[in-house]
């Protein structure tokens, strides 16, 4: 059984900002149904170019749901430039901690954010080529991504 922090439990059981923002400025999808897991992140900017609304939809485990929820909370009030700086490590720190085997569940959050920002800047959908060996078959995380997170 996983040891989850109170904060993870709270964000899993009472997820904040669930759903999709209407007429979003940025809309990004990470993961895929084929990998058995996905996260869609949408956001809207206010007049000062700060994120005033961010919402998520997740098909994933408790850690994935909690990470997504935490990410939306962290995003609100930030500029795109500030949002871009958010790392996985910060999502995990925000949640207290994640079990080592579950660290990759927060990778998706960052990826969805990247995709949403790319969409905001270009109007296009980011087509992520997954490179590296798929080590988490359930969620299509690759060893390179996990390594990257581990190094962060």
């Amino acid at each position: 059984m996983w040891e989850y922090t109170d904060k993870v439990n709270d964000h899993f059981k009472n997820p904040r900002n669930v759903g999709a923002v209407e007429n979003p400025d940025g809309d990004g999808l990470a993961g895929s149904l084929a990998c058995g897991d996905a996260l869609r992140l949408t956001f809207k900017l206010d007049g000062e170019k700060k994120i005033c609304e961010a919402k998520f939809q997740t098909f994933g485990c408790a850690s994935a749901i909690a990470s997504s929820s935490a990410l939306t909370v962290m995003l609100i009030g930030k500029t795109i430039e500030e949002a871009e700086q958010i790392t996985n490590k910060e999502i995990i720190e925000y949640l207290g901690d994640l079990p080592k085997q579950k660290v990759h569940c927060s990778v998706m959050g960052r990826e969805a954010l990247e995709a949403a920002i790319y969409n905001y800047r270009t109007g296009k959908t980011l087509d992520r080529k997954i490179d590296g060996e798929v080590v988490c078959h359930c969620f299509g995380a690759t060893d390179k991504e996990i390594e990257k997170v581990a190094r962060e």
Partner: protein
Amino acid sequence: MKSSVYVDNNATTAVAPEVTEAMLPYFTEQWGNPSSMHTFGGGVKKALDAAREKVAALLGAEHPNEIIFTSCGSESDNMAIRGAVDAMGGHPHLITTRVEHAAVLGPCHYLEDKGFRLSTLEVDEKGNLDLNKVHEFSISGKKTVASIMWANNETGVIFPVPAIGSIVKQGGGIFHTDAVQIAGKLPISVKDTPIDLLSISGHKLHAPKGIGALYARRGTKITPHIMGGHQERGRRAGTENVPYIVGLGTACELAMERMQKDAMHERKLRDRLEAGILATCKGASVNGAGTERLPNTSNISFEYVEGEAILLMLDDIGICASTGSACASGSLEPSHVLRAMDVPRSMLHGSIRFSLSRYNTDEDIDYVLEKLPPIIRRLRELSPFAED
């Protein structure tokens, strides 16, 4: 730490009060070593013999001496496979299936790494084996050792073991079946079935965790897995776990007495649970439905939601269930059994196993049927794929 509704009996069962009571004197008073030459120790041997007879009776074995006590189902499986292969000598051809428990796949893959040929049979989307394939492999020319389970721990799907055994024996092979999940739930009779080796585990039938048995038909050659002392007629060394052996005997006796009643009770509750969930939860479907299944097991996939999330929410309100097998819960892989059944990806990650016992009640089912649908609804709302 007390659960209110425990529907995870394929993971482990409550120790029956009758079992605890039967074991207790062997901790407090009769703690002697049955191999001892004095009455105090040696006298305990009678308790072992009595327990051996009860286990033999449940399995329908001809002789109590065909029962070898082990420390768990996993040891029985390892001993059967590695012991039979070693005793056979040469390089027998191993046959198993994709849906076996890790305790069978583990030694099979180990032997494959050592150079043995291993054939792993596929199942169809309902969990059924293709008996023609069993036949094909069994007459491949080489001696075979086949290990094919009787009932699946995740789905409850029952393989036609009598037919499989006949095919394997026709080919001159040794046939082992993992009966850990069927023993005590449905009647079996090794005497009347072409089985050489059969594994059971105490904690799946209301004995404690840490005791198992291997049935080895008279004349079946098998190298001991734990070598040393002369216990179990030289087939399994180690001072006997007297209290648990007594407990397993009592559990088998109880199971035999109550089997029909328990099975009917569990089937009724299970069927109501399944019907209720299918009627109230969008995107739910029963894995292995339409196949012969154990009366107590229901494996249900929920589209677009993730099993762990469901489990944790259930746990929060005192409902204990599981995704797939408990011993794999450290792993992030989706169930190898459901993958073998080609369950679509949208359903693969959201499967929950409900497994009942004689101790479950109508109220338990009512509670699950009340609490589960809103959880599924909430999780589907979180999902980017589900539509209403």
